[in-house]
């Protein structure tokens, strides 16, 4: 097993404390939010930040801080769910293709290459478009697009892991395939997957915010960061705070994910770098 040296490092410390803080605030949202995120107060529209409303109010007089805090629940929980769906699809397929190479592997990988030929955002937006705008359709669409990346990642990690001597000896000592995968391959692959997933959480949150911003994802009045920015379009010229704070929330969350993963990539760059290289489509083209 590879050992990762977790030296105390500023970027990891910063990133993880940022994420932990965000998740904790999200978990205990009612404790932290000063107002009801859905309470409309039309006499209090678009007020600038004050003691009572630290981030000001939006076009319906709702407290922006409370909406951002409750938005953590929607955005982060949703990204987490998408991650679980994605792994549920890509883990079996990735293990299948990486462990038993051959015709099935070839077929699956070629069709994945076909899907990857379509720009990711374009495909996501199309699937949302065909299914119709909405919260669940957005989740389905993102999962449907993102699993391909994971299959490629898992496959290459499994391929690499299977070359190790201890897997060979495990195979020789008569372990069943399932046991080898469970006991030896999976623990070897897991740390890299975990980190890749953590980094991807940030990307998923960005993607969701983008879709919601276009009005295709989460629908108002749900407090979600992308929706808040969508609502802000008409008002940010007179009240910039309606746009600045939700954007900062997204930025901080994604930044937290980036900080952690960046450091990890430097510490343990071999497997992920390879995958990144593989993502360079020209190289895979040239190889074949």
């Amino acid at each position: 097993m590879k050992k990762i040296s977790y030296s105390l490092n500023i970027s990891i410390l910063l990133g993880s404390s940022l994420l932990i803080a965000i998740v904790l605030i999200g978990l205990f949202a009612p404790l932290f939010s000063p107002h009801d995120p859905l309470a409309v107060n039309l006499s209090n529209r678009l007020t600038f930040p004050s003691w009572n409303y630290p981030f000001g109010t939006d076009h319906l007089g709702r407290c922006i801080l409370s909406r951002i805090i409750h938005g953590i629940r929607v955005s982060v929980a949703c990204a987490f769910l998408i991650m679980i769906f994605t792994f549920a699809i890509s883990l079996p397929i990735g293990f299948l293709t990486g462990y038993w190479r051959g015709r099935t592997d070839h077929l699956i990988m070629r069709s994945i290459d076909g899907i990857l030929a379509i720009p990711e955002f374009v495909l996501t937006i199309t699937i949302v478009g065909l299914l119709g705008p909405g919260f669940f359709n957005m989740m389905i669409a993102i999962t449907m697009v993102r699993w391909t990346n994971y299959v490629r990642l898992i496959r290459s990690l499994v391929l690499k892991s299977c070359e190790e001597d201890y897997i060979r000896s495990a195979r020789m000592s008569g372990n069943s395939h399932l046991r080898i995968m469970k006991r030896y391959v999976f623990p070897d692959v897991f740390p890299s997957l975990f980190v890749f997933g953590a980094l991807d959480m940030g990307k998923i949150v960005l993607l969701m915010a983008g879709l919601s911003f276009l009005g295709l994802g989460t629908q108002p009045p749900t407090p979600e960061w992308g929706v808040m920015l969508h609502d802000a379009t008409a008002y940010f010229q007179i009240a910039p705070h309606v746009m600045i704070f939700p954007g900062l929330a997204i930025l901080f969350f994604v930044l937290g994910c980036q900080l952690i993963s960046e450091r990890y990539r430097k510490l343990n760059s071999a497997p992920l770098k390879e995958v990144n290289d593989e993502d360079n489509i020209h190289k895979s083209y040239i190889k074949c």
Partner: protein
Amino acid sequence: MIRFCLERLAQLIIVFFFVTTLTFLLLRLAPGDPAYILLTTHDVPASEEALNALRKELGLAESLWSQYFQWITDAFTWQWGTSYVSKELVVEELFRRIPATIELATAGLVVMIAVTLIMGISTAIYSHGLLNQVGKLMALLGSSIPTFWLGFLLIYFFSVQYGWLPSMGRGTVKHLFLPAITLGLGLGSMYARVLRTNMLEVMNQPFIKAAMARGLSKKRIFIFQVFKHAFLPVVTMLGTSFAFMLGGSIIVEEIFSWPGLGKYIVEAINMRDYPVIQGYVMLTTFIFVAIHNVVDMIYVWLDPRLRVS
């Protein structure tokens, strides 16, 4: 080289075939009856007779296989149907909006390349200074900042506060500034890091030492040897980033009311204009794959090592 091009052409056709099949499947999987949606878009009461007549007209009454065959032949002969909303040919509608999007993506690409070159080279030269820290921070922010938020900030500062640049529409070069920066800045600062690492790596190579030993000036070495070598991998990224621009332009066009493909597709999605959505996917994929292949060819042309293998 000719064989290489032919191979690519074959690949292009296969990918196109695959995408058309995928869009066909997606449309069949989509909930709702197209005939019903079409009628309700035009506020016609959806009686059973009207529905049946329309299904026949759209070819929905036939078997799935014949529909699929029809769809494939139509797709390859550029007959992508008519828009439910405007009743005009999808191909025409799309082609009318392509120039705006290409213009925006190209401008974004120019910004991206400029940022990559300026930041990449200067941080490679002053590799351990304040500038390098700024570059690092920019790359980190560039990969975390939501595009639409950056667009908002730019509009707020440059249009609302100071009124220097227009915030929406298409027309003069001035209109291009803000959308192009929104599109290209983040990606450019990320690639600048890649260029910097490449350049620093190249500087350790023996041939640079040899050049130094021959007494070439530092400037000359930097421009003609290091940069030339380090820029190769960046060229390939241009292809990938163009794809990003096509996707990213959807949001940027929406923010800046840019009359291109991206804005059109969002409208189409909200109106449930299926033929337009299909046409859009096929078109962008086609452009994307074509550009990828062109970039590959340039790469092979630039790097003689690849021609041998």
